[in-house]
């Protein structure tokens, strides 16, 4: 359907530009005028565009779309994204407030991020717009009553970028395209640089008079010919960026770069044409090449850091095998994973990922949840157990009943939290952003001053020294220093299974002085375990065996704790008689035993003083045989965590609602001095406040809903375990794995991140303070300036990459 450029005489379709077939009668009414269309399709599409108030499309378009389908694409860009059915896939709605993830095309530097954010936030009705520099994802919240999504997308287009709804495959495609373009620009610049150097070096080395003016001029012309594509193709992004910056009256780092390249190139061309003065094509090409190399390496580094976040999204497979008639029969059908509904039965083979959150209804296998939680050991999955969408089924096929899909899944929740963390900028990053703008302004003023000064001293050198000053300054280090370090650190934390959900979390965690633990479920597993056995008659092992026999088949936590402690059951019990809430009575090897609460099993007997907590008794007709103390089991990594945190110089505190004796004992076991029990949520809150009044920066860990207020009070809060969503939403960080020691890793990484950010900022300041005066005094040639600037940026990024190895 491509239109072979119709001549003006032939009547053509107003919408798509194809020639009108004879007898076509599909009129379009635009502002009272009748326009012809070639077919009913074009007529309908045009009418939709006009009726939706986008008639300006026809006024503003510079060319016909290539095909009628492309015309539809145009329409899609404008209006289709406002349709609720289209939005369902990527927009989260809370009443009138909508939130969407977009990918931005054309982002090359921190300045573009700044520009887009500012531009979007200015739109009436846009509540917030945060862009993640690493992944190019924008999180936009808007008020549907005041602004439409299409208007937001249009606003992005107005300033020269492109926005699409987020979609992984599109993101990949975009990255691939950008990378290929970057390689092409780099290749042209590299080749140009090498060959231009071949012409420049003989000129530098030749002794006076060995080269005729004609040969010299020929070499200069050759240099010009090869530099031209380097300037107009390879260096094009810098000009584009500078133009964009200037269009919104802002100074980004592309401005001095573009100015430097343009001035040096223009002056050299003029020198060739006028057959006078010096040419600096070698400097121009080298500068462009080094800058592009720096940017290319930075792009790869950024891509690598963003992968932690991206890999999460890619975990959900595209297709799922549904068993529509399960359990009646097992006909399989393959459906898109997004089409699954809660209640559907799906079959997940070994080696496949679960497409949604669900519960196992048939089969037994193990699942690898390491990408989601950082937990390295595979978890056993049996009938009735929950599986997380995105985790990997390892051993054998499972039939799973879908429970949650789409935005409700654990994975979506994690991705949302991660998005929020990446989009919220810490104070340090915000400050760096602001400084970069002023920095460029100052550089331009200095360059102007240097130009004037040298013009007075030695006009022949003025131009090149000015170019050197423009080129040598490196706001990139300033603008890159913080975001690069933060991105790498967040990626690393996510891989560890410690998810940072707020921008300030890392910064605050690094400064924390006190760690407050909530006992149950944080340092303990929340599972019952046999802690102590006190025998009255006989030996502990046989008492335990009898108790296990009595508890066989019972499902409550006490029973499983006893059975677990007894190991393989050898005895059989009969005539079992359960008294709910009291205990159980039964016959083992011909004798009658009672097991349960002391008042039921052994009434009238004193508990041994050494036991506290939950105690149950085993007794026969003659009286108690043994006392069992049961309690919460300490997580295996808790002692290691406490030791590591102490080694990091943190004060540890244990505030729990549990009985004071239990908490005190646990405090003694772990070596935490400030261990207080019997605390209500309000008491914990008061205690944390008191610490804060004494100047402490409190990191609070908790797991339950009752912890939400105190989590909010602490400067930085960490929710442990995936249990309570309320706690997660209030928390600044979420520990996804069961490995408590990750908390200590987190503190270490947070501190290291602060160090790296400071190093980067320091380097940036130091470099500029030395390089700018040196260039202004004429000690730095333009090509050396180019190397210096690229290397400075690269150093900052590489320094940030070191965080990957903490």
């Amino acid at each position: 359907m491509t239109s072979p450029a119709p001549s003006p005489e032939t009547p053509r379709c107003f919408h798509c530009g194809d020639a009108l077939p004879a007898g076509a009668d599909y009129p379009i009414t635009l502002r009272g005028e009748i326009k012809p269309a070639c077919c009913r399709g074009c007529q309908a599409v045009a009418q939709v565009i006009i009726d939706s108030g986008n008639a300006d499309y026809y006024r503003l378009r510079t060319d016909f779309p290539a095909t009628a389908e492309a015309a539809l694409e145009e329409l899609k860009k404008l209006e289709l994204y406002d349709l609720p059915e289209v939005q369902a896939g990527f927009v989260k709605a809370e009443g009138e407030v909508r939130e969407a993830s977009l990918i931005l095309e054309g982002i090359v530097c921190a300045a573009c991020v700044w520009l887009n954010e500012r531009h979007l936030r200015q739109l009436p009705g846009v509540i917030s717009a945060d862009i993640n520099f690493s992944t190019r994802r924008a999180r936009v919240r808007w008020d549907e009553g005041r602004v439409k999504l299409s208007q937001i997308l249009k606003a992005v287009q107005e300033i020269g970028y492109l926005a699409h709804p987020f979609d992984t495959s599109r993101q990949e495609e975009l990255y691939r395209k950008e990378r290929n373009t970057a390689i092409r620009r780099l290749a042209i610049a590299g080749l140009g640089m090498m060959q231009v150097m071949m012409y420049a070096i003989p000129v530098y080395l030749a002794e006076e008079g060995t080269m005729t003016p004609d040969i010299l001029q020929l070499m200069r012309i050759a240099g010009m010919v090869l530099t031209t594509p380097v300037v107009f193709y390879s260096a094009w992004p810098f000009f584009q960026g500078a133009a964009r910056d200037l269009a919104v009256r802002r100074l980004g780092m592309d401005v001095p770069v573009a100015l430097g390249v343009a001035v040096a190139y223009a002056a050299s061309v003029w020198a060739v044409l006028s057959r006078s003065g010096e040419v600096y094509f070698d400097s121009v090409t080298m500068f462009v090449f080094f800058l592009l190399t720096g940017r290319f390496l930075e792009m790869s580094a950024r891509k690598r850091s963003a992968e932690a976040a991206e890999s999460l999204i890619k975990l959900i497979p595209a297709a799922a095998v549904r068993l529509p008639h399960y359990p009646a029969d097992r006909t399989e059908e393959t459906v898109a994973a997004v089409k699954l509904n809660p209640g559907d039965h799906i079959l997940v083979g070994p080696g496949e990922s679960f497409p949604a959150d669900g519960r196992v209804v048939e089969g037994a296998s193990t699942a690898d949840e390491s990408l989601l939680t950082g937990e390295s050991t595979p978890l056993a999955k049996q009938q009735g157990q929950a599986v997380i969408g995105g985790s990997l089924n390892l051993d054998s096929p499972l039939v799973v009943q879908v429970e949650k899909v789409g935005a409700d899944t654990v994975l979506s929740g994690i991705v949302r939290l991660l998005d929020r963390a990446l989009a919220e900028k810490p104070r340090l990053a915000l400050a760096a952003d602001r400084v970069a703008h002023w920095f460029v302004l100052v550089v331009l003023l200095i360059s102007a001053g240097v130009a004037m000064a040298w013009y007075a001293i030695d006009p022949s050198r003025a131009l090149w020294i000015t170019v050197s000053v423009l080129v040598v300054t490196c706001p990139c280090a300033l603008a890159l220093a913080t975001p690069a370090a933060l991105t790498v650190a967040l990626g690393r934390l996510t891989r560890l299974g410690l998810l940072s959900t707020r921008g300030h979390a890392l910064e605050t965690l690094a400064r924390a002085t006190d760690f407050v633990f909530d006992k149950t479920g944080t340092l303990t597993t929340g599972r019952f375990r046999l802690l102590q056995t006190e025998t009255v008659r006989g030996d502990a092992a046989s008492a335990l065996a009898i108790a296990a026999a009595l508890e066989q088949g019972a499902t409550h936590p006490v029973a499983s704790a006893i059975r677990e402690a007894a190991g393989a059951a050898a005895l059989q019990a009969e005539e079992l008689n359960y008294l709910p809430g009291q205990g159980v009575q039964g016959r083992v090897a011909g004798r009658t035993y009672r097991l349960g609460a002391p008042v039921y099993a052994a009434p009238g007997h004193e508990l041994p003083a050494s036991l506290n907590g939950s105690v149950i008794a085993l007794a026969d007709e003659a009286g108690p045989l043994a006392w069992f103390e049961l309690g919460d089991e300490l997580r295996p990594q808790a002692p290691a965590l406490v030791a590591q945190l102490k080694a990091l110089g943190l004060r540890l505190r244990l505030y729990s609602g549990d009985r004071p004796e239990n908490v005190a004992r646990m405090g003694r076991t772990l070596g935490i001095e400030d261990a207080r029990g019997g605390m209500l949520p309000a008491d914990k809150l008061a205690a944390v406040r008191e610490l804060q009044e004494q100047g402490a920066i409190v990191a609070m860990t908790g797991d339950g809903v009752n912890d939400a207020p105190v989590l909010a009070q602490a400067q930085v809060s960490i929710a442990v375990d995936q249990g309570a969503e309320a706690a997660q939403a209030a928390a600044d960080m979420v520990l996804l794995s069961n490995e408590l020691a990750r908390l200590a890793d987190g503190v270490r990484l947070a501190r290291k991140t602060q160090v790296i950010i400071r190093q980067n900022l320091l380097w940036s300041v130091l470099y500029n303070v030395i390089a700018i005066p040196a260039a202004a005094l004429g000690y730095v040639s333009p090509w050396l300036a180019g190397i210096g600037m690229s290397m400075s940026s690269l150093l900052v990024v590489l320094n940030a990459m070191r965080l990957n190895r903490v």
Partner: protein
Amino acid sequence: MDILYLLIPLSIVFVAVIAMGLLWAVKSGQFEDMEGPAHRILMDDDDEPPAKNRD
């Protein structure tokens, strides 16, 4: 020295040819996977060589 009048323009032509070759390589996707091919040479898939190479 007169040969330079030929060699210098020729060098520009050469650079143009090399550049075209590079652009073609980028376009045909040779830079998309920089690691895979290096590993592929170590893979033992000698079991199934193209049929026509065998009698």
